[in-house]
């Protein structure tokens, strides 16, 4: 009896990734809180926040990889979902400021007082409750992705057309959020946060916890994404990526599959944004800029698409390099980033992951002798 091939949920790369992630998730906060400041082992506060930020980017890249690497949907608008999640969290944080704002209005955020608004707009209602805000972190990006995807996939917009309209989508949101009368703080966005769930956002312990949550979210979403792509649903996604109409003629409703994975991915991006905002302390419309979304795509490509952990790794490496270079040679960074886009697409189609693990699109058992024999037999 033959043994049916099964796709392992995590795979070797996945396990290594999770172990490393766990190590970093624990070590960094521990060394930050418990090592003596100044000692070689001590991780300074800013480092915790910085790495926490990278982890959020990694989660965003993971979300992009889920749709691009496995389903061939090149979204140039994932930054929008990230930013929407961030705004949802930012709104919660704004409400927590209460009367500690410059104008001391217990109800209205400062920018609304400044604009002479008299009462809280309806869409700000409820954001003072953390569970509600958390729900919105998933729901708002998810709903946008759902509606947008429903329209786009149903009318079979694919390839670069889809990429361009996702880019137009985030561009439209960018313009919208710049407007003061949208009620999201216009140009300046939301900032000056005081505390989250009663803990001051600036405190080292809060930061350490936020950091840990980011790592946890990344790990959790990684496992969830692996679960999806290693199931039959994941196999269908790859089928859609490689031969969309064949998949259709097998009876699969391609648009439903795309919609499912696009929405899940958008929610992951939203979560990433929500974790990002309390750590960096601000969310403004520039997060919607199309450049951000495209950059995310290159993290994914650089890390190696279609592996999930490669995308996360790519996000961390590229952003670490960015921090390093912008400090050292600010002018050189755009050359490097631009070069990265070119080099990766031309010479590194499999990305870093390809270097690490003899990378493949899918588990690829070697062509057996038997297969060759059977070919000959047929002739």
């Amino acid at each position, binding site marked *: 009896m033959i043994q049916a091939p099964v796709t392992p949920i995590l795979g070797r790369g996945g396990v290594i990734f999770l172990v490393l992630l766990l190590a970093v998730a624990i070590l960094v906060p521990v060394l930050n809180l418990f090592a003596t400041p100044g000692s070689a082992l001590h991780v300074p506060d800013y480092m915790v926040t910085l790495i926490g930020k990278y982890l959020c980017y990694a989660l965003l890249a993971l979300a992009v990889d889920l749709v691009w690497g496995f389903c061939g949907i090149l979204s140039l608008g994932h930054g929008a979902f990230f930013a929407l999640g961030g705004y949802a969290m930012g709104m919660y944080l704004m409400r927590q400021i209460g009367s500690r704002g410059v104008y001391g209005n217990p109800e209205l955020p400062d920018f609304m007082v400044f604009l002479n608004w008299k009462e809280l707009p309806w869409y700000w209602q409820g954001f003072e409750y953390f569970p509600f805000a958390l729900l919105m972190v998933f729901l708002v990006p998810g709903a946008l992705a759902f509606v947008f995807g429903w329209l786009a996939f149903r009318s079979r917009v694919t390839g*670069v057309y889809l990429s361009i309209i996702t880019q137009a989508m985030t561009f439209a949101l960018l313009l919208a959020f710049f407007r003061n009368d949208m009620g999201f703080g216009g140009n300046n966005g939301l900032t000056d946060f005081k505390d989250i769930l009663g803990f001051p956002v600036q405190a080292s312990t809060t930061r350490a916890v936020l950091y840990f949550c980011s790592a946890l979210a990344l790990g959790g979403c990684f496992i969830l994404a692996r679960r999806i792509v290693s199931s039959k649903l994941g196999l269908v996604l790859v089928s859609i990526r490689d031969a969309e109409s064949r998949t259709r003629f097998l009876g699969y409703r391609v648009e439903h599959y795309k919609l499912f994975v696009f929405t899940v991915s958008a929610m992951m991006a939203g979560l990433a944004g929500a974790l990002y905002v309390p750590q960096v302390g601000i969310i403004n419309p520039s997060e919607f800029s199309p450049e951000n979304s495209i950059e995310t795509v290159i993290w994914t490509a650089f890390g190696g698409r279609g592996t999930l952990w490669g995308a996360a790794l790519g996000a961390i490496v590229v952003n670490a390099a960015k921090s390093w270079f912008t400090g050292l040679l600010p002018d050189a960074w755009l050359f490097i980033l631009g070069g990265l886009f070119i080099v990766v697409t031309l010479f590194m189609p499999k990305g870093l992951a390809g270097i690490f693990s003899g990378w493949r699109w899918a588990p690829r058992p070697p062509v057996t002798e038997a297969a060759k024999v059977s070919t000959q037999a047929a002739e």
Partner: protein
Amino acid sequence: MRSLAAILMLLLMTCGVWASDAAQLINALAPGDFKERETAISALAASGAEEAAPVLQALSGGNLYVRKSDGKVFIAETRGDALALTDPVGMAAAGEGAKADIEKIKINNNLRRLISNALGGLTMVSTDPAARRKAALSVLKSGDPAALPSLEKAISDEKDAGLAALMKQAAAAATLRSDRSDAEKMAAIGVLKERTDRDTAALLTAFAATTDSGLKDAATAAAQSIESTLARWAAVQNVWYGLSLSSVLLLAAIGLAITFGVMGVINMAHGEMVMLGAYTTYVVQGMVAQHAPGLLPYALLLAVPAAFLVSGSVGVALERCVIRFLYGRPLETLLATWGVSLVLQQAVRSIFGPTNKEVTTPAWMSGSVDVGGVLSLTMNRIVILAFALAVFAGLMMLMKASTAGLQMRAVTQNRPMANAMGIRSNWVDALTFGLGSGIAGLAGVALSQIDNVSPNLGQSYIIDSFLVVVFGGVGNLWGTLAGAVTLGVANKFLEPFAGAVLGKILILIAVILFIQKRPRGLFALKGRWVEA
């Protein structure tokens, strides 16, 4: 107060008492309180003396002084600790005076207004037609009845028919506010009705509110007729603004229609080709200014071929070094060319600096053309519109009628067949891409005239250009034209209602929805190869 001055002026004029001694009139400005000064100003203005205008100007500018010792009035300006004096009569320098010996002649707002009206009256008879026009317009706006007498005199002297008509309208505006007879006012309403501007309509409405007689209805009707004419013109103006925007969109998108539409290469660095064209214009202008300043007005014409060559060769290089390895992989092409765009931007930033560069507008492109007295079409926009159409027509001809165009279409439609027929498709690819990029460079020349020449110039056009091409229908130049016009005009028609930003958002959403409905655009080509 003002009517007093007017009466006085009238009196002086009707009696034909022309003050012969200008100096005396000028010196009369100094003594006494504001009320007396008012009379003196009116008298000076009414004298029609040639010194009147400069003296009154100096007075309102705070440059008119009086010498304490003899009460003689001078125009003066500070020079070190002292004042340099000019004798208003004859405008001759009159040495210097110590500050202690000389006192400034003070005025208040009331007098300032009087002076400006009086100056209006004076410039009405100025020898410079432009000054007369300005004066008439100022009265038209203020409707100040004090200007009426000088206006009426000016009308009778005026040789230029157009100016005379304008002055008559100004007089009519002043009549409405004056205490003249209803018949005269009725005639004035008739005159004013011919005008089409918001100010006149407001003037008429305001007038209607002050009377109850039959004039009220006439004025209201006239105001309404002006308003409706204005609304019609506003629509025309929107169309013009829309067309103007369309021409910019067309220029930016037309190169893309070649590279993306015809070749299927998605070039995210297209905006940077435009940007390079703009910088080429800047460099060419700089070189011309240095080496052949006489040719400066034509530097822009020189920049046209230069920009085409610069952007075109960068395009060819890009095709040979990057894009040709990525044919058939559109998503990768998108990413790689995005990288190229970042590199180009940063390169330009490193070479030219991050700040905006000044590109001068030659005289033949500045100024504006008036249409219907309401609409003013700026010259640079007109030139750009013409340029865009010329580029479009040229490209059309190239594609349709030349061997190069034939080969391009052959290669893009059936590569193996074209190869078999001996067309070197590699070179056709490179040159087609170069052509698209070169046209982007041309767009850059035009855009340098209306936008900031900065490293980010291209970024602001890239999404718009893609929308135009996709909306118009990929692979169809006429579609691109239609797309540019539709989006441009729609944008400008939405703006008044929705505001610029919201208008743009609405357009974006509309296009997104449209692409859902017709994924292949307005002028979609049907056929199997499209789906490949």
